[in-house]
């Protein structure tokens, strides 16, 4: 059974190389990153040699890897055919050999190998002497086995949920903390480290907790063996093996249950308030209501708004606490609106085949104006307070909260530009989108990457260019007293933004009136 499932996994991996071009590229990129992670981890762990507390950092790295194994299979559930027990439920298989086979399948592939090779950096960084080296190899193997068993236990236990719409939604929301952590590590941590606010001693206390977690047990076993405490090392490895055995037992029981449990993935609860809002506003109100509901209920939309806010903060983090903070505020506003434009520049494509309902009902420039203005209203209802809140937050962080007011003026103009440009791009550059398993946001379908890139670049530079009058007005009036300057700037920018958005609506509707069948054909080819 183990051999068969390993062969199945290898077949799935090699088939990825032979299938579509995007799948082939994904496979190659994934393997490349696995190699990078292996080399990077090995070097990082090896460089701990001679440092003050290498076991603390080793335990932290081991814990991060275990966390990765806990989270990532939730995203790749639909990608790896061996993860879902339901795919094997129809075959006459006994649970124990099946469990061993699934475990072996999990250990097959570039990423598990990268884990083992990368973590073996401890043989250079932490281990000392023959006993230490031997313990390091065993500890790394047990650590990877723990990670695989943990991942299997979680995915099998949650398989029913992950197959359901709700489970997929929850998995999509996991992108939010991961993206936030990524931005924090790439933007905030280096800056705090450069300022001396994060040092090696900052993490000293963490080891008190980590040493009792399974990854910490592995790291400390190596430390103990290297220090000549063979008994303590053996005890820790034994404890880790016992944890793996208990986890494995729980997983086998859960697998046993999953193979004979009825699929409840179509069960769901009702939504509240089932009538659409904006009853008096005709087509515009109906479209605004639909878009607004989607911004709330569609995980992809929630993730988009979150990414917009995080990117606004990340774009300003290097200069917000300097005398050039006003540049950070301007940059943040323009990039925030740029992200809005990027995310909505293909709104027809990301609507997908459901656009047929709109394409069969709408005809003529008047109804299409209602369509685009409804879309803009719903997006503005969220974009204006979100961008304003981030701008105020950044201004307060800079120590100049009042400057958040003129930053809002730039927000308003840039949002108007983003709405206008995204309306235009979606009728001129629309392309089919597809949602791949494990990703909450749809991407350009194969062969349409060029259009997506053009729309993204056009969004960022276009929003910056069209917002320029508002930015210039802010810069040129810096000496004017705030009581006069701020109301004029905010009202002027709001008017400018509204005029831009309205011009975008009229122009996009006029184009869409002649291209509606072609736009529908694009939407129909989307796979969401």
């Amino acid at each position, binding site marked *: 059974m183990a051999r068969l499932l390993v062969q199945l996994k290898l077949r799935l991996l090699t088939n990825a190389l032979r299938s579509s071009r995007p799948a082939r590229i994904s496979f190659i990129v994934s393997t490349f990153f696995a190699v990078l992670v292996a080399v990077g981890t090995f070097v990082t762990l090896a460089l701990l040699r001679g440092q003050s507390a290498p076991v603390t950092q080793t335990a932290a790295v081991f814990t991060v890897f275990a966390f990765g194994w806990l989270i990532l299979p939730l995203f790749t559930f639909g990608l790896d055919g061996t993860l879902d027990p339901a795919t094997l439920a129809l075959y006459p298989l006994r649970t124990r050999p099946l469990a061993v086979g699934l475990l072996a399948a999990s250990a097959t592939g570039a990423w598990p190998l990268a884990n083992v090779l990368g973590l073996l950096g401890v043989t250079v960084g932490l281990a000392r002497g023959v006993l230490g080296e031997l313990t390091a190899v065993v500890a790394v193997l047990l650590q990877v086995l723990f990670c695989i068993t943990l991942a299997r236990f979680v995915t099998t236990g949650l398989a029913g949920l992950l197959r359901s*719409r709700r489970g997929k939604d929850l998995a999509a929301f996991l992108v939010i903390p991961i993206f936030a952590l990524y931005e924090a590590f790439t933007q905030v941590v280096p800056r705090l480290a450069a300022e001396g606010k994060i040092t090696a001693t900052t993490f000293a206390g963490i080891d008190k907790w980590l040493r009792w977690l399974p990854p910490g047990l592995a790291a400390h076993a190596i430390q103990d063996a290297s220090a000549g405490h063979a008994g303590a090392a053996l005890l820790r490895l034994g404890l880790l093996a016992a944890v793996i055995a208990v986890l494995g037992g729980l997983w086998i029981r859960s697998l046993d249950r999953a193979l004979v449990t009825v699929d409840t993935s*179509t*069960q*769901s*609860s*009702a*939504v509240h308030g*089932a*009538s*659409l809002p904006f*009853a*008096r506003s*005709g*087509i515009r*109100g*109906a*479209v605004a*209501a*639909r878009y607004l*509901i*989607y911004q709330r*209920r*569609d995980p992809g939309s929630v993730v988009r708004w979150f990414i917009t806010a995080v990117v606004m903060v990340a774009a300003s983090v290097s200069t917000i606490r300097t005398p050039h903070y006003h540049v950070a505020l301007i940059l943040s506003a323009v990039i925030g609106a740029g992200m809005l434009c990027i995310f909505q520049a293909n709104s027809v494509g990301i609507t*997908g*085949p*459901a656009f*047929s*309902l*709109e*394409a*069969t*009902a*709408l*005809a*003529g420039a008047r*109804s299409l104006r209602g369509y685009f203005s409804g879309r803009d209203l719903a997006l503005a209802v969220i974009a204006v307070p979100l961008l304003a809140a981030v701008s105020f937050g950044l201004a307060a962080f800079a120590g100049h909260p009042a400057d958040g007011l003129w930053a809002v003026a730039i927000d308003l103009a840039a949002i108007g530009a983003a709405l206008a440009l995204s309306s235009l791009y979606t009728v001129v550059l629309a392309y089919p989108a597809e949602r791949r398993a494990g990703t909450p946001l749809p991407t350009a379908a194969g062969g349409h990457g060029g259009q997506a890139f053009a729309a993204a670049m056009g969004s960022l530079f276009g929003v910056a260019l069209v917002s320029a009058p508002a930015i210039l007005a802010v810069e040129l009036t810096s000496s004017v007293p705030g009581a006069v300057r701020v109301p004029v700037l905010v009202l002027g920018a709001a008017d400018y933004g509204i005029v831009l958005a309205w011009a975008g609506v009229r122009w996009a509707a006029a184009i869409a009136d002649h291209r*509606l*069948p*072609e736009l*529908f*054909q694009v939407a*129909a080819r989307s796979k969401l």
Partner: protein
Amino acid sequence: MGEPAIAVHGLRKSFGTKEAVAGIDLEIAAGSLAGLVGPNGAGKTTSLSMMTGLLRPDTGRVVVHGLDVWADPPAAKAIMGVVPAEARLFERLSGQELLEYAGRLRGMPAAEARSRSAQLLDVLDLTADAKRLVADYSTGMRKKAALGCALIHNPAVLFLDEPLEGVDPVSADVIRRLLTRFVGSGSTVLFSSHVMELVEQVCDHVSIIDKGKIVATGTTDQVRGGKTLQQAFIDLVGTKASGAEGLSWLGSSSS
């Protein structure tokens, strides 16, 4: 026959070098329940898409109750209802929200759209699921919801692409009864289907399409010519030899 409800003249569409629809002519009388049948890839969906303004034809005209679909789309769309093949709907709306949205997109006052959606959900046996998200609907429920969206503005002509594909018998019966009732009031239905028994049972007019051309059209009795519709269809479009000789191991008598 008076003015036909649907008149199609010389409709053609090519994708690259492949001619998907090779010039079809079709006339469906008002109050008719017409079926368009054909094998996979015959051009049914392409033809229906062009008739409903969703795919621009290379040449040809489509006239619905005197309104040219491609010359005056707003007027033609106002009297048409469309159920596309896969019934891909707005998944994050509830069934009730979806039907109300469809009505309001057609310019109906919100109160009327709400009232009609409640009535349609009731007739379609979806009231108990009205507040559930469409994402959680089964195939049959989706088809019924799509039919509700297409009917909410009371169109004069309804186009349906494979309305019963993948639908359970109970839902199929609900859809069939609703279509029969709709036609009984003088409206017109044109639907494509693979299910010959269904077409034979409910349609008074049948057209058979093969390789992008209408190979037979007329009343159901005329097209059948004394045979079952299934047999008439196979006689017209031909059938591939089974080639099952190679499966000598298949069956309980073999080892």
